[in-house]
């Protein structure tokens, strides 16, 4: 998953190079390969690259950020299928949708990538309890998500 030079399109050379890398010289082989493209088969590192690619791929023009709505949709696309716990994904998307902070109407690459790592590190609610905001190096967005989760937990 090489980064493309322009967003939202894959150029022919890039495509060819990619195919070459995967040793695809015929349509048959390509067809055989297709099932393995299911993200579920990727290991973490590969998926991380793919995940990053997803962000880059969807950027438009020279913008460095993605709109929140797009991010929510993308997240749901990329991360379903057991990559991370669905509870984490859903609550995060909810949080993004409900947050009123203007500064989060756009999501940066850092925030985008951090969420995946964050989900690895704090997979479920129990792990989240150990989250220490004062010590964390996570983006503030994640801090606030955790706060949000804590409040939800208290309500219950």
């Amino acid at each position, binding site marked *: 998953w090489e980064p493309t030079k322009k967003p939202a399109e894959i150029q022919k050379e890039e495509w060819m190079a990619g195919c070459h890398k995967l040793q695809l010289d015929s349509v048959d082989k390509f067809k055989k390969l297709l099932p393995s493209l299911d993200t579920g088969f990727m290991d973490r590192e590969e998926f991380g690259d793919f995940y990053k690619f997803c962000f880059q791929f969807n950027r438009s023009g020279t913008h*460095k950020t993605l709109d929140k709505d797009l991010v929510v949709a993308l997240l749901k696309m990329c991360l379903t299928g057991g990559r991370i716990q669905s509870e984490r994904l859903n609550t995060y998307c909810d949080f993004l949708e409900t947050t009123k902070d203007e500064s989060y109407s756009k999501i*940066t*690459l*850092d*925030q985008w*990538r*951090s969420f995946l*790592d964050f989900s690895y590190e704090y997979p479920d609610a129990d792990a989240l309890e150990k989250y220490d905001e*004062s*010590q*964390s*190096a*996570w*983006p*503030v967005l994640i*801090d606030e998500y955790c706060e949000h989760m804590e409040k939800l937990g208290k309500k219950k």
Partner: protein
Amino acid sequence: MEGAAATSTSARSNSANNNASSSNGNAASSSRKFTIKPFRSYTQMDTSSAHDTFSSLASAMDEIHNRNASTLSFEELYRNAYNLVLHKHGGLLYEGVQDRLSVHLRRSGAKLVKLAREESAASGNGNGNGGGDQYKLLEEMANCWTEHRITMVMVRDIFMYMDRTYVPQHRKRPVYDLGLWLFRRVVWERSMEDDGNDMEEYEGEQQAMQMSMGNSGPLKSAENDSTLGTVASTLVLQVIHADRQNRLSDAPQRTSLLKELIHMLLELAHANAGQFNDSSVLGARGRRTDQQGGNGVDNIPVYERDFEEVFLGESQDFYRMESTSRLSHSVGLGGANDDISNSTNDNGSKPAAKYSAMEYVHRAQSRLLEEKTRAGLLDLPTQTKSALLRIVETELIERHAKTLVEMEGSGFSSILKVVASSPAVGSVAAASASGRLMMASPARGALGMGAGSRGMLGGMEPSENGVVIDRDRIADLAAMYDLFSRVPSSVNHLRDALSERIRLDGRALVRDQETNVAPPAAFVKGVLDMRERFAAVVSDAMRGEKKGQKRMREAFEDFLNADARAANCLAVYVDELLRVGLRGAEERKVARELDRVIVIFRYLADKDVFEAYYKNHLAKRLLGNKSGSEEAERAMVSLLKAECGYQFTSKLEGMFNDMRISKETAEKYRSHKKGLVNTSTDARDAENGGKPVDVEVSVLSNSHWPSQNVQPCILPTAVKAAMDRFQKYYLTTYTGRKLSWQTFTGSAEIRATLPPIKGSKKSNARRHDLSVTTYQMCILVLFNTQDVLTLKQIRDETHIPEDELRRHLVSLCTPKHRILRKGSKGKGISGDDDTFTYNAEYTSKMTRVKIPMVSMRDATGSATGTAATSGANGIDGGAAAMGGAGAAASRGLVDGSSTVPIAVEEDRRHLLEAAIVRIMKARKILNHNDLVAEVTRQLSGRFAPQPQFVKKRVESLIEREYLERDEGDRRVYRYMA
């Protein structure tokens, strides 16, 4: 052990003397015996003759015991003993000596037991109160001991040879020690059950003793409670106890007695300390010459066991009981009461049974002293002494430290409260604040103050700064601190109380400020007074200890930095000081005041907020010529510089510089103008009655001053012309510069000519020089041509921003200076159509009138207008002096607000990012927490950044690709070149 060594040497010389003296002729027979067989030492002395010799020695010992020593020939005895040992009868001799000694001691022991019994029978019921009789036993015992010691010295002299040869070979005790040992066994540890009939029991006893010696096990009597020794130590303790309660009539005598007995015990203990082969069974163990050896089987330390332990336990109980009963509500310890009230500083109102904290402190103090002197008098060994003091300290201080601190009315906290709330002279706000505190304080001091007279509180002395510090209370606190400092751990309670108090008071001040009870300056004044008092507490009462100072600082920082308010208020306070407070004050006072301010400034975390406000105020002061003293201003800036470095004050200094240069420029301009005046008369000047308008301009560097882009208002033509002339001059003098007029903060003097009031005697026109702001000038000049103007008209004519316009108009309509009449009634200005009418009936006693500005808040209130009647107008722009400059209450810079102003927030963002980049550039790779710590450290001189805030900046820098997260570890940042 030195003492022992000394006595033995002296004894040796004694015996030498004896030898010399007796050689004269006293004992011819014995000397003959010696001379007949001088070298036949190996000839066996048979057993019977040995017994003969010994019996003569034994009878000699009896004589010694009967104090008939003077009749004996020591040389002869020595020789006999020598011979016995020489002829291998050492064992016989040693045992015999032991027997003899035992018999004697047994006898005196029995005597003592008898005495003890009689005594306990006599004073069977009254345990401690039986008068002096009980001491007989002690006295007798002491006597017995002294005699025994004298005896033993003599006996030792006789058997010196045995000591030297036989004893070391067979690992026996030296004779003297043997005596001590026996004394302990036979007298001290004699069971009270023993009958006085010693002779009958002697045989059995001896058997038992030998048995016990053979076993070398713990003595029977050790398990038996009631020995002569325990009875004696109980008595000793009783004496001490009585002494503690001051019930001892003949204390010196008693103490010497006690001292004697304690000495005895110590010596007995030492005698037992070594390990000796008391029986052949134990031969395996090596002899220890070190007398301190402690864990031998037969090494029961008499002193520790029979006295020290009990004594310390007793002391503990005593003081525990005393301290708890004093601090709780229970009754006191009987007869001790009189003494107690003497030794305390009680005001007399307390019941004697219960101590207030201070009384307790004084009492404890004297108790400790007593114990110390007693220990000295009794000559207690150092280990006991320190253990004793330790116990007393624990019981009296450590256990009750918390209670003492928290005790209602007289505890450390309460006294602190009183100290903290003593009324300040000359500060209404502080007095009101402390008044509130007083309400909550039930302490003694509050009663005094409740009566309303400061005179009632002795020892109050106003300090140089007008802060009253209650010296008496501080002395109390000092006493408590001194006491507590004996037990380091308990001092923490004091420190806790101190910081708690500061926090509470501080928060109360903050709350007052929040609810607008106290204006910002009063808030600062309160803080200053508070600091003064607590500084006095720490330096005087807590002896200026480091930890106390630290706790105080932390506590102050804690409440001052709760929000940005303190920085703001402090700036306001300083502004007031420099404008009014220090006007005409002598140099020393100025320095002192400013020092005080700096102390608070040091506590602030938001130094940049302070700077922002300070700059703003300074600008106003400089431009409005409101500064009280140039020197004070400079002193303040240099203090800030010393505190925060060059960068912090460079802008402030720039402002001063601008002012200086402006003055020079104005000077030059004036001389330049003089040259022009003769040649060309300005036509427009003539319009204004021929008087030219003087303009005084302050040229300010844009970067140094708090600037704000405000559209310049439209100035009256006369003023405008004058300004244009200056501009032309200035721009030709300094090419390449740009002047932008800031009409915001100028001021003007206007001469108003008002018509005579109807019915007034004087018929000529009245003149007033009105001192107004530039805006007000603009407004007033409009009324030259018209009598009535609406708000909208004025705005259109002048282009003054709405808020300011309203504010300036209102200040022209105040009841005191009603130059204009407002059309609408009630608060503020109703709307665009509200009318303003020139008030011809304006009166003032002064010719020069300074029109005060109403504050922003009041601009919407105040001023009830009355219907206006028009009159002739006569305001002309006379000599108008105005400064065009920009200094404004920019958004967010509202006095007394608690939030960080937006402009400062902006500055912080830049500073933070700069700091982050700087650090990352140097380190390349850095952990998140380290980065935050480093940034915080670097910026601590100006403000304390929130970690969250730092994080946001980092994210923003990542976004802009200055930094990136490490691929492996997300907590690590890399600098991207």
